[in-house]
Structure formats: structure tokens, C-alpha cells
């Protein structure tokens, strides 16, 4: 049986990408198109006393200007997962207040980008400044200014999120070692390469079409319709290719509303494209914050209790704050087994840029703290950290953060394999010769687990429609977006496999909310898992219809038929065969049979696992940390497309290295201004910084819920790399860092302090 599952077939989306023919939202041009631009706030917190647009309106070429007075005032969700507990309803298109430096206050449409930009400069805004808070501590202070009227008050985005299992007091009482620490996280941004962009057009019947770079077109449709007061069939969202999103492009951004309204006002198509600077300013970041973590242990390394307090900085709006906080908090129930936990998560408004969804969704932060603390404990107890983690690793039947029992021993498998592949014991400080020179090397490891799909936090559903055409070719309609992961190829593979046709016979239609089945969006590591399963279900229906027709023609029972590579054979009757095309051929009275299948899948929960093993080199004179090699071991169930899966892992590691060593979007603590909103000042690891990555993928704990046993992989790889690096730095120079990013200055300062202590 030849199978297309597990084969790295040529991705359907890359031909356009390597030839320049792939169409991204910013590539679309319409006749008479205008250019939109936003005027952004130059203060972090203020009431808008007045806005004067007269000079800007007088500029030749300016066609329309919108301020808060001109747009519908509808309180809406920042991220449009309708009415899910993950997101908050705290935004207006344009408000009479600004809550962070860089927030949009007005929008212009003009005949050129230059004129639109100039017009923005000519708009004058009279701000009545309000006291602003830039840190969580300032925001939580009793006399702190109130940023929002909605929410539970005290600048909280949501009521504290609490999880209690077992008896924490008893757990700590039984502990032979108690360790606690506070871990701090900077403000990395997704920094996708394609700046946010959309193009809006209205037709004479009052229907809006929007081309936009979004991960969740149906959510964009829903929120635009709600806020603009339109039925859903009057909003059409189009997205073909998009240049990355990494979670952040789940939100609906101010410009998407404003562009639609400018197009409506001018009766012309309007394109609005962020500059790179705006992509920082108006984009979304990972939640910065602190995690206080305390754990009790037996001398043999058994964990007896865990207590944590998470405080995240949400920035000026809630966006995904509730979801990220809940997922981060729940994730600390697991990874390393512990029956007694008390966990608390908070998320706080400040007058800083908006934190939102970003690959790893809170778990990056929580496992950074947990995995570094495990290393600290291992050191104190004199146990090898990998052995300590292996001893405590979650396993089959354990209750996952989602409250579902886990399948398989994925995490243990990953740790064991990594230990073996790296020759771990001889690599660590304890097993190797002391280092003398200026360059010190060290090895560290970190672990992770992550859910495939956001269920049960969000009620999720994967859909697919599969149609067989009268020549036997297949059209798959999917609402999932092509984020760049190769998901559409994986969906076509799954469809082909289930249906028994060749991969080449399946064409994927996507990216048009008027045509494709509803989809919640491409996020939460769920596309292949959830939409893939829906494709499988839909394909199975079509297959049954095809085989029923074949059975009639062959005068055998459909149960005896097999189909592969579009050829139908009869089990046990060699030589009796029919092509799919023959089976569905026109008959008297039926020129073309209707062969439609439709799949709707409500996922169960599955978890993927990973352990990252990392070697670093610390230059003790410059403080520079180089990552020399990474051995990521991931257990992700059945792999559909190995190259695409490995690509997710390598890319996640790149972002994780950045988080840990250099990436931090810095906000001036005096006035809330962005200090490094450019690719030069926001330093990401590039070609020369990236180490060799030797990816190992295991398929030892497949999920019953996923197609052919597949699970998710998108978010996993960004999680374990961070603590692995921090732990490797400790192995190299004996200094423990409990935050990210770990900068060269901090390394030097810590080394100097250590030298001072040793001299004293």
C-alpha cells in the first residue's frame, strides 16, 4: 500500500513563493485605489480634547479623514473569538481616549501614500494628558489611574485565575527541600515579515470585501459585521498567502475597521499597509511579566507541592490576556507531575503596547520558570537535571492541563532519546574536564508539552468540504489560512490518503469566506490536527459514495472494494478493477453525480511533547552567548509532512533563541514611548546567529483524535529552547539567570559579581 502520509510531497503553496507569483494582501491593486494611513498617538494616556483635521482635509489628494466622531462606537473584542473567555471586549475603533503611545487616533485616505502621510502630520490633536502607568506594579498600586471602565477593576483584565488540586499545605509539609524564586520575562514581538495590510472595497449593494493578512478570516468577518452592523453575507474576507503571523494576526486591528470605513466613505477601494515601525507600534507582543514559583521536593527528587503566582502585563488592551493567563496558569499543573498545586494568574492593564497571542501562548513564560527551577533543584539535590526531569515527567493517564488524561509516554521518550543522542552525561560540567580559557561551553536542556487545539478554552471545530469532480479529480474546500506552515498541503495529503486518490489529484480552495466552510482560524497548533480530521471525515464520505457506484457497476459488495491511486479493486478477485473515473462516469439520467462530503470535527484534546538539548558558548570577555548546536526531540504523533514539521521546529527554535538572548521590545519607563521599533534595534537571530539544528521527531504517542494519529507541532518548538539555553549558560559559567532576555551586559555583570564573591 503506497501512502502519502509521512511523505514530504512538494508543497502546493511554494511554487508561487519561489517565483514571486504568490499573491499577498498587499499585492492586490484595484482601479481607483486610495491609500490609507493612521495618525498615531504621541502620548501614552490622555483624553482627546479635540482633533483639528481642517488643514489635512484641504491638502489636494486627501479624500477622507475619520476621527472618533466619525466612526461607529461599538465596544468590541480585541481578538475576535466571539464570546470566548479567552478574549476581552474593551476596544472601540477609535476612542475619545488613548491608552498607549502609538494608538491610532485618526485615519486618512488619499491618492498616494505620501499625501496620506503628510495629511496625518497636518492633523493636530489636543491631548489632555492623564497619569500613565507603564509597569504592572504601577498599575496595581492603590491610587493607580484607571485605564478601562470595563473589567473587574483595579486595572485587572480578568478576575485572578485560580487552580487548586490536592493539598498544597500538606505537600509542602512533606517536602525535604523547598525552593522558590521569581522569574522575569521581557517583551518579545512576533516580528512577522509581512507588515499588517488590508484592502477594502464595497460593492453597489453594500457588501464589503476585505483582503487582509489574517490568521482568522471568519473571525474578522464576524467582528467587522458586528461592529459595522452588517449581516455576515455582506462581509467577504479574502486571504490567499500571508507573510507570517505567529499568533498575533488573530487579532482584529484598528486599521481593518478604518480601512473599511474609509472605503465606504470615499466609495473607492482603500489599501492600508503598516510601515515596519507601525507593525511594532500597533502590533501585538508576547505578555511580559513575572512568575513567582515555589516547589517542595523529596530528597529523591519527587515533587510534593507547587505554588505559583503569575502576573502578566497585558498592555493597553486585553486582547488575548485572559486566554494567555489561563493557559499559562493551567500549564503549571503539568509537565512535571505534582498532585498538590495552587496556582494563580493575573493579567494587568498598563499604558504600553498591546500584548496578544503569540506562538506558545503563555506556556513559553511558565515553562521557562518551571524548567529553570527544576535545574536549580537538580543542582541542590545533586541529581542530573535530565534524570530529575525524566523522573517527574508526565506520562500516560496523567491529567493534562486541559483536565484530559494523557495518551502515551511522549515526554519521557523525548528526554531519553535526547540523553542518548547527545551523550548527555559526558557533556555536562560534572562529566567533563574544567574549562580554562575565555570561552566557556555548557549544555542545558528544557522540556515542554503543548495542546493541539485551544479546546476546551475555546469551543473549537474543524470543517471541510470535499468534492469529487466528474473526471475523478478532487476539490478540497477549507477555511483554514495559509500561514506559511504548509498546512494546506498536509490537508490535501490527508484527503488523498483517505479517499484513495493521488496527492496530485487534490486541489485546495481556501481563503474566501464566501466559498469555504467556516473555520475558527489558523492558530493553537490545531490546523493539521483538527481541520485535518475534518478533511478525513469528508473524504471518507466521498469515498463511500464512489465505492457504492463502483459496487453497482462491478456487481459486488462495496465492503469488498479498495481504492488506491484512484483505482478500485475487489479484495480477493485479482484482475477485477475499475478506475475512479469509470466508477463515477456519467450514466443515463445522471450527467455528473454529486459527490460531496462534509466533515465537522469537534476535537478531543491531544498534547505534543518536546525536549531540547542545547550547547552554548559564553565569551567571558564580551558576555556574548552563542548557541552552538540544538538537538530538539519532539513527539508529535503521526507526522504527515516531515519537512514541514521539521521546518516548524527549526523556526520555533530561532524565535526562542531570540527571546532568550536578544529580543526585547523596549518601552520608555518615563513616557511609554517605543524605543526600538525597527529591525535594526530589535535584534533577532539571523543567518549567522543560527546554529545547526539536528531535529529528531518521534511518533510514539499518536492521538486517536488526530488524522492518522497526527498531533500539533506549531507552537511546541518555541517553548523548551528558552530554559534549555538558560540552563546551558549556568552549566558553562555557573551563573543562574531567571529572566529573559539574558543580555551580554548582564552576563558580564554576573561574572564580575561572581569573581568578586570568590575573591572576598
Amino acid at each position, binding site marked *: 500500500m503506497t501512502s502519502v502520509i509521512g511523505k514530504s510531497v512538494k508543497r502546493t503553496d*511554494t511554487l508561487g513563493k*519561489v*517565483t*514571486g507569483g504568490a499573491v*499577498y494582501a498587499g499585492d492586490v491593486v484595484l482601479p481607483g485605489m486610495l491609500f490609507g494611513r493612521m495618525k498615531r498617538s504621541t502620548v501614552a494616556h490622555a483624553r482627546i480634547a479635540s482633533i483639528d483635521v481642517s488643514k489635512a482635509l484641504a491638502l489636494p*489628494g486627501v479624500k477622507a479623514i475619520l476621527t472618533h466622531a466619525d466612526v461607529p462606537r461599538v465596544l468590541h473584542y480585541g481578538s475576535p473569538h466571539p464570546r470566548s473567555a479567552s478574549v476581552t471586549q474593551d476596544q472601540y475603533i477609535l476612542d475619545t481616549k488613548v491608552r498607549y503611545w502609538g494608538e491610532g487616533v485618526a485615519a486618512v485616505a488619499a491618492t498616494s501614500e505620501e499625501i496620506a502621510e503628510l495629511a496625518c502630520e497636518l492633523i493636530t490633536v489636543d491631548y489632555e494628558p492623564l497619569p500613565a502607568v507603564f509597569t504592572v506594579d504601577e498599575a496595581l498600586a492603590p491610587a493607580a489611574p484607571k485605564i478601562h471602565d470595563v473589567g473587574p477593576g483595579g486595572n485587572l483584565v480578568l478576575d485572578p485565575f485560580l487552580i487548586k488540586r490536592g493539598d498544597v499545605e500538606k505537600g509542602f509539609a512533606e517536602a525535604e527541600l523547598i525552593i522558590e524564586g521569581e522569574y522575569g520575562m521581557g517583551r518579545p514581538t*512576533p516580528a512577522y515579515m509581512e507588515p499588517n495590510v488590508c484592502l477594502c472595497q464595497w460593492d453597489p449593494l453594500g457588501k464589503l470585501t476585505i483582503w487582509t493578512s489574517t490568521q482568522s478570516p471568519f473571525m474578522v468577518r464576524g467582528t467587522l459585521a458586528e461592529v459595522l452592523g452588517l449581516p455576515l453575507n455582506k462581509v467577504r474576507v479574502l486571504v490567499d498567502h500571508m507573510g507570517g503571523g505567529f499568533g498575533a494576526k488573530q487579532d482584529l486591528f484598528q486599521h481593518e475597521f478604518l480601512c473599511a470605513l474609509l472605503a465606504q466613505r470615499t466609495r473607492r477601494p482603500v489599501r492600508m499597509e503598516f510601515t515596519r515601525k507601525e507593525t511594532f507600534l500597533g502590533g501585538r507582543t508576547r505578555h511580559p511579566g513575572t512568575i513567582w514559583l515555589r516547589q517542595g521536593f523529596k530528597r529523591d527528587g519527587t515533587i510534593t507541592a507547587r505554588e505559583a503566582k503569575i502576573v502578566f502585563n497585558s498592555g493597553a488592551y486585553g486582547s488575548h490576556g485572559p486566554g494567555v493567563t489561563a493557559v499559562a496558569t493551567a500549564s503549571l499543573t503539568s509537565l512535571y507531575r505534582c498532585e498538590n498545586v495552587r496556582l494563580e494568574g493575573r493579567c494587568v492593564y498598563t499604558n504600553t503596547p498591546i500584548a496578544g497571542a503569540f506562538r506558545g501562548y503563555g506556556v513559553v513564560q511558565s515553562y521557562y520558570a518551571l524548567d529553570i527551577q527544576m535545574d536549580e533543584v537538580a543542582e541542590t539535590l545533586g541529581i542530573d537535571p535530565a534524570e530529575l526531569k525524566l523522573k517527574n515527567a508526565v506520562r500516560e493517564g496523567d491529567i493534562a492541563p486541559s483536565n484530559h488524561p494523557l495518551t502515551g509516554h511522549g515526554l519521557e521518550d523525548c528526554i531519553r532519546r535526547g540523553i542518548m543522542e547527545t551523550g548527555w552525561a559526558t557533556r555536562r560540567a560534572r562529566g567533563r574536564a574544567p574549562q580554562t580559557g575565555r570561552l566557556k561551553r555548557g549544555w542545558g536542556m528544557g522540556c515542554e508539552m503543548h495542546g493541539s487545539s485551544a479546546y476546551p478554552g475555546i469551543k473549537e471545530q474543524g470543517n471541510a468540504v470535499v468534492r469529487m469532480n466528474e473526471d475523478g479529480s478532487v476539490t478540497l474546500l477549507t477555511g483554514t489560512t495559509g500561514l506559511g506552515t*504548509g498546512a494546506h498541503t498536509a490537508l490535501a495529503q490527508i484527503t488523498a490518503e483517505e479517499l484513495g486518490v493521488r496527492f496530485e489529484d487534490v486541489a485546495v480552495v481556501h481563503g474566501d469566506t464566501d466559498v469555504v466552510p467556516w473555520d475558527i482560524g489558523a492558530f493553537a497548533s490545531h490546523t493539521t490536527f483538527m481541520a485535518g480530521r475534518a478533511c478525513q471525515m469528508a473524504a471518507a464520505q466521498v469515498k463511500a459514495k464512489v465505492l457504492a457506484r463502483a459496487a453497482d457497476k462491478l456487481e459486488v459488495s462495496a465492503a469488498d472494494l479498495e481504492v488506491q491511486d484512484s483505482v478500485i479493486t475487489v479484495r480477493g478477485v485479482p484482475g477485477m478493477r475499475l478506475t475512479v473515473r469509470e466508477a463515477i462516469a456519467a450514466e443515463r439520467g445522471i450527467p455528473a453525480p454529486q459527490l460531496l462530503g462534509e466533515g465537522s470535527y469537534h476535537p478531543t484534546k491531544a498534547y505534543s511533547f518536546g525536549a531540547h538539548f542545547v550547547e552554548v558558548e559564553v565569551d567571558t570577555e564580551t558576555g556574548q552567548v552563542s548557541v552552538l548546536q540544538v538537538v530538539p526531540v519532539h513527539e508529535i504523533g503521526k507526522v504527515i509532512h516531515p519537512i514541514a514539521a521539521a521546518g516548524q521546529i527549526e523556526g520555533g527554535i530561532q524565535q526562542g533563541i531570540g527571546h532568550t538572548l536578544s529580543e526585547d521590545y523596549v518601552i520608555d519607563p518615563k513616557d511609554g514611548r517605543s524605543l526600538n521599533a525597527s*529591525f535594526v534595534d530589535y535584534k533577532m537571530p539571523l543567518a549567522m546567529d*543560527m546554529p545547526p539544528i539536528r531535529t529528531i521527531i518521534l511518533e510514539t504517542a499518536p492521538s486517536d483524535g488526530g488524522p492518522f494519529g497526527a498531533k500539533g507541532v506549531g507552537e511546541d518548538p518555541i517553548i523548551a529552547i528558552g530554559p534549555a539555553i538558560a540552563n546551558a549558560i549556568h552549566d558553562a559559567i555557573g551563573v543562574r539567570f531567571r529572566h529573559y532576555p539574558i543580555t551580554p551586559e548582564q552576563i558580564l555583570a554576573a561574572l564580575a559579581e561572581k569573581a568578586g564573591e570568590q575573591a572576598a
Partner: protein
Amino acid sequence: MTAPITTVAMPVTITINGEARDLAVAPFRTLLDVLRNEAGLTGTKKGCDVGDCGACTVLLDGEPVNACLVLAVEVDGRAVTTIEGIAPEPDRLHPLQESFMALGASQCGFCTPGIIVMAKALLDRNPDPTEDEIRFGLAGNICRCTGYTKIVEAIRATARQMAAAGQPRE
């Protein structure tokens, strides 16, 4: 009041992917904008517009440049090659394009045109680059999706393949 923007267009002739194009461009327009908006070649991408990301890399008389840092009027009479002009024939891809597809070097693809153009320039100069030379050659091209692993692999595979085929580079 700020002066209205001068939009006096200047005539230029630019040979784009082998075809001489007569265009009228405003003096402040970058080559990137002219390629994308006037010449209709949207394969070249705008990731930053200030020379930081390499998404707009094109060949100017065979040398890689950031098209966002070059004014269109400066390239009057010169030859530009974009991603759309990398393939030797309409039905035959450049080996780099083949390798990028086969080895998974393109994910979201937004960096891909710039990186392929840059890699072509690199291989034109140095047909057998080491891994370090490839990484150095891509120092100005940001890719946020791939970790560069498969990009480096694809460029090396192309170099090997072209050497084996003894193919002249176009």
C-alpha cells in the same frame, strides 16, 4: 502650510528582467515601489522599506541591492532582475527555486524572493560556498519562519547540483 507634494514624473528607461520599460516616475519613488506599483511586479516584497530586512533584494546590473534604498530615477538606463526574472525560461525554474521547494526552504514565503535573488548573486560570485559563506551572504536577509536551516541546505544543494551539471549560470 507644508508645500504640496511635487509629483512631476521623470521619464526613465529601466531594463526589467530583460525587457526595456519606459516609465514615468516621481523623483522620490524608490525602485521597490516602482517595481511593485508601476511595473506590476509584486514578487519583490516590502518588509521594512528602510534597508533592514532584505525582502526587497533585486539585482541591479547583476549586483544585489535593497530596492527600497534605491531611487527609481537612479537606475535609468540600467538593468534590474527581480524574482520574476530568475527562472531561465518561462517553463523552467532556476535550480535555486527547485531546491527551495524541494527542501522546504520557504514557509510563509515573504522573505523568499529576496533570499533567492541574494542566493543567486552569491552563487554567481562563488559557485561553491561554504556554509559560513552562505550564512554571511544572507546576513542582510531576515527570515522569521525557517531558522535558516533549510535555506542554507537548499543553497548548498543547488551549488552541488549546478557543479555536477556543469551548468553555466545565467
